[in-house]
């Protein structure tokens, strides 16, 4: 284990995790709105926002799937030291982390069962860009409509059709994050 794995966690966990959760909750409750978070310095290629989400939501009860370049010793050591979360394959994970190319195809992840639709994976998608422009969103949490840059439209639309089953997403870029729950309807793309 590298020494830098021991660093980059919350310095004051109860308060920083509470503030971070409020940002994550606000993002999940209002798709299309981008929140800024702070407090984690995870190793590359993890973004600050993804690190904050992992620190806030993961612990020994949540298997994490690392995809593509994110499945490296630095990231594994950092998550293990700071959260104790076990690592798992995509079929059994509660959280998945990686860029879009690495986390797809989405059909590998659990989407919940009809009796327990909450038992589905939350996918943290690392983005090179994140802006409030792009695909048009509507649904719970959105007053009339919102726009958000999505990595790809069709798989997200296919996921929304599964409701009440389906995956929920956090899109992260640097220290910013946005939420995309399964309820969001993605209608078309702007210009």
């Amino acid at each position, binding site marked *: 284990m590298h020494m830098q794995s021991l660093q980059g966690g919350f310095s004051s966990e109860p308060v920083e995790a509470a503030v971070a959760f409020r940002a994550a909750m606000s993002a999940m*409750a209002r798709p299309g709105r981008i929140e800024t978070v702070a407090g984690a310095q995870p190793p590359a290629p993890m973004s600050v926002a993804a690190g904050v989400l992992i620190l806030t939501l993961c612990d020994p009860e949540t298997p994490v799937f690392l995809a593509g370049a994110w499945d490296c010793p630095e990231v594994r050591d950092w998550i293990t030291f700071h959260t104790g979360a076990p690592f798992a394959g995509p079929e059994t994970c509660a959280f998945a982390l990686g860029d879009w190319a690495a986390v797809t195809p989405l059909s590998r992840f659990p989407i919940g069962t009809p009796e327990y639709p909450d038992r589905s994976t939350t996918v943290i998608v690392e983005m090179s860009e994140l802006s409030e422009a792009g695909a048009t969103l509507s649904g719970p949490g959105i007053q009339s409509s919102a726009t958000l840059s999505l990595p790809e439209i069709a798989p997200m639309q296919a996921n929304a059709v599964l409701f009440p089953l389906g995956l929920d997403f956090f899109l992260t870029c640097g220290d910013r994050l946005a939420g995309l729950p399964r309820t969001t309807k993605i209608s078309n793309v702007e210009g």
Partner: protein
Amino acid sequence: MTDYNFAYLDEQTKRMIRRAILKGLAIPGYQVPFASREMPMPYGWGTGGVQVSAATLTPDDTLKVIDQGADDTTNAVSIRKFFERTAGVATTEETSKASVIQTRHRIPEEDLTEDQILVYQVPIPEPLRFLEPSEVETRKMHSLEDYGLMHVKLYEDISRHGQIATSYAYPVKVEDRYVMDPSPIPKFDNPKLEMAAIQLFGAGREQRIYAIPPYTQVVSLDFEDYPFEASKADAACDLCAATDSYLDEVITDDAGGRMFVCSDTDYCRSRRAAGHVGALGTAFDEDAA
């Protein structure tokens, strides 16, 4: 305050509750099971709401707690003090100044904003529980969207009483999918369930958390020929003369004397402060008890 972790609960418990809240927001109206903890108050005193509030609060929040609309009843006072001591948060009685509002059985009269969070204390989260006692069965009914039994119940109300007699905990359908118990709020409050604030519901004894994101469609169940009606006592508040607020009927003597007062104490106080005087009211005095 140094004797406790921030907001009383340990971090792992808060993470578990936070994950349940996020899944609840992603599946509006669905009851997410969670590992409810023992709290330093009995079940029935809002342990579910307290746990959700504890996982939601940050040190910068201003907390308001109401019990049946009132800020000054035992349950509200004790929960407010609990978070003053364990989270060190500011508290208020004014709806507009609060960022987190924990409520028992009412929605404040004043419209909530996007910056606010409303946390409900829920006794029985399962709307079908009194129709079907088995959790296995009700879970299957939700998964199959089999809500015929609930309509039979409302129909039996009509056949027995000539109208839908359910006056509180009136069932709603969220986003055209899950039938949900809005907690025992009067049905007068049901139209307000479509609001700008995030709504979180916590049931401690029954170990369920559910949620309604802002601007989510919430429809009270009814029939075409017996449409839903948000009812209240046909009177004005005797203290502030409000005709648009939900009223409590208060017995004032043993000779049949009674008066109607706003159930939302902050709404009534602010109206009286603005100069409104009801039939039995006196001019507002800031220092009066």
